[in-house]
């Protein structure tokens, strides 16, 4: 599933599984590979007669997109590895552009008796951690929740008291885990909950959890979302970050403390505050335009941040015009205006620029802009600003 509290720092499946293994959660034997030769060597070293070749990208739905293959010979491992490595994998979670596969996980195949689902998630509505389980492993759990709600059990965990084991045991029964593995399942629930807490996770999903032919339970897939706000206490995750998976503009923005997200349109927006930034995108659309980005310069934007914001927006090749929408609160409009003028001197903005300032010291701010040699169109309301920028793009 897609978590409701997403992280900038995302983990690959193989990284999530290493964390699970360290917490005594059984996962298949596997190795991470960056080339076809490495994949073949890994399969030989792992042994057995069946292997799974899995694309490692930061998105779900890989199987459907052709990013997961079962090989019954070393030659098949070679074939699938060479097909998958370097391919652009498009899934329902990657967006239309897809993601290029740069690493593989090669795992030893298992004899599967049944597939189940286990997830831990932060339930925003109830404001507690929820343990979700289902007999329908391998499926998208959101679909199970809609189509077969009776097949999904959810229990909420009291963070002070921890997991109630009687309830957890009844969950094991409800999802059809054989009696013989109940003790093992209890240990697994406990270990997963420990991973969830110690990693500051906001989502931990094992889908599927497999009961093997010889009666063991193994986490065959794993997904962990981490809480960005808690990463100050997890320096160990810093080195797991895979920058090749991220938008370079978004990386640069986060380095200078800006919230930036690339979009498909052609009107760049520079706004202070996340809610106002979304509202600005919406009003551009309402007037027939298309925003090229979300960009929140925050409450205390400096001249350096504003010029970095312009630089990042201009790197987006689609951008045809820029709308600046600032509501000065504690951050005064004159300070922001000064920042815009300085930024314009550092960055060569040759596109139409519409500026709307409102709020604290707005008159001073407008004066600073009109006294500068900046070429721009002024607007007083959000409506006027959106209309002007949409018109500028159409010209």
């Amino acid at each position: 599933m897609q978590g409701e509290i997403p992280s900038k720092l995302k983990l690959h499946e193989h990284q999530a599984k290493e964390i699970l293994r360290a917490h005594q959660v059984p996962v298949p034997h596997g190795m991470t590979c960056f080339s076809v030769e490495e994949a073949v060597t890994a399969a030989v070293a792992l042994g057995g007669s069946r292997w799974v070749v899995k694309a490692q990208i930061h998105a779900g739905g890989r199987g459907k997109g052709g990013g997961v293959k079962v090989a019954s010979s070393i030659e098949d491992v070679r074939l699938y590895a060479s097909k998958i490595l370097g391919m652009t994998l498009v899934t329902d979670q990657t967006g239309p552009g897809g993601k290029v596969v740069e690493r593989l996980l090669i795992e030893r195949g298992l004899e599967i008796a049944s597939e189940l689902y286990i997830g831990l998630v932060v339930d925003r509505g109830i404001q507690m951690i929820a343990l979700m389980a289902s007999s329908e492993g391998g499926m998208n759990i959101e679909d199970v929740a809609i189509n077969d709600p009776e097949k999904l059990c959810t229990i909420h965990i009291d963070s002070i008291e921890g997991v109630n084991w009687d309830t957890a045991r009844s969950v094991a029964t409800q999802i059809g885990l054989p009696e013989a593995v109940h003790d093992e399942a209890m240990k697994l629930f406990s270990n997963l909950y420990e991973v969830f807490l110690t990693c500051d996770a906001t989502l931990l999903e094992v889908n599927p959890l497999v009961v093997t032919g010889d009666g063991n339970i193994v986490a065959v897939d794993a997904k962990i979302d981490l809480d960005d706000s808690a990463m100050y206490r997890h320096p160990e995750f810093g080195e797991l970050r895979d920058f090749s998976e991220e938008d370079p503009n978004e990386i640069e923005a986060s380095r200078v403390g800006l919230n930036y997200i690339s979009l498909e349109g052609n009107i760049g927006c520079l706004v202070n505050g996340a809610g106002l930034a979304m509202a600005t995108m919406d009003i551009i659309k309402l007037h027939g335009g298309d925003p090229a980005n979300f960009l929140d310069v925050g409450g205390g934007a400096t001249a350096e941040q504003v010029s970095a914001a312009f630089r990042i927006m201009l790197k987006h090749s689609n951008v045809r015009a820029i709308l600046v929408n600032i509501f000065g609160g504690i951050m005064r409009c004159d300070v922001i205006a000064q920042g815009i003028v300085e930024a314009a001197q550092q960055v060569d903005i040759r596109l139409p620029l519409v500026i709307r300032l409102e709020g604290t010291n707005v008159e001073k701010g407008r004066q600073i802009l009109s006294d500068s040699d900046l070429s721009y169109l002024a607007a007083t309301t959000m409506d006027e600003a959106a209309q002007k920028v949409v018109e500028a793009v159409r010209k």
Partner: protein
Amino acid sequence: MSILIDSSSRVVTQGITGKTGQFHTRMCLDYAAGRDCFVAGVTPGKGGESFEDIPIFDSVVEAREKTGCNVSVIYVPPKFAAAAIDEAVDAELDLVICITEGIPVHDMILARQRMVGKNTLLVGPNCPGVVTPDVLKIGIMPGYIHQKGTIGVVSRSGTLTYEVVDQLSKVGLGQSTCVGIGGDPINGLKHRDIMALFNEDSATEAVVMCGEIGGTDEEDCARWIEQHMTKPVVAFIAGVTAPTGKRMGHAGAIIAGGKGTAHEKIAALKSAGVHVTQNPAEIGALMKQVLR
């Protein structure tokens, strides 16, 4: 009247000696009855000192004993903010307003669990605060944009709320109380709770509600409005153009697994009889029209 805060509120600032705490405490002191209402500060280890003639204590309990404070505002850094909330709850204050942005989710889940069965209310975290115009401002919003009046405002964001308040003031509609409930996924009072307070408040004639993508608070509020609300409500939901699976600045603003879209929220509010505008520049004008 007003909701949550009035001239009888007695406020303690947790984190009063930090740069942010100092700056905003000064701004709040200078607003309306601020000097009468802000009575205490807390910074562990700085008890006995003072700031702008406000005595500083080592703990909230001590501040309460010595000054009778019943409301706290928190500017403590994210690492320690959840503990600051716990402390205010343990001191049995009536209301805690947490401004701090970036508190770890697990810390907030624990803090919320510890509040179960207690009478303390929480606004925030990651919010601009609460203001009752011409009476008391507790938080970081610019005071001068507000006018005393009869419109209640509840919102998940900061500058978008200022935009709305500014529009209301400019069309001659003052505000009874403005509440920023914050942009975090785990928080205190929700849209629905604030709506219920406005419904009971004799000073509030109508309510503006600003929601955004993520979670289902707006849908919950819509259901509540349908069954209980006796006053007109105008709403705007930010994020109609937001893409799926991307966090839009606020930790809680995300469309995930097909849930939390602006369209769903707008549909729920419309079917509850709420006046919804898709144009954020027309919120003030729409309210004017609704009240005509």
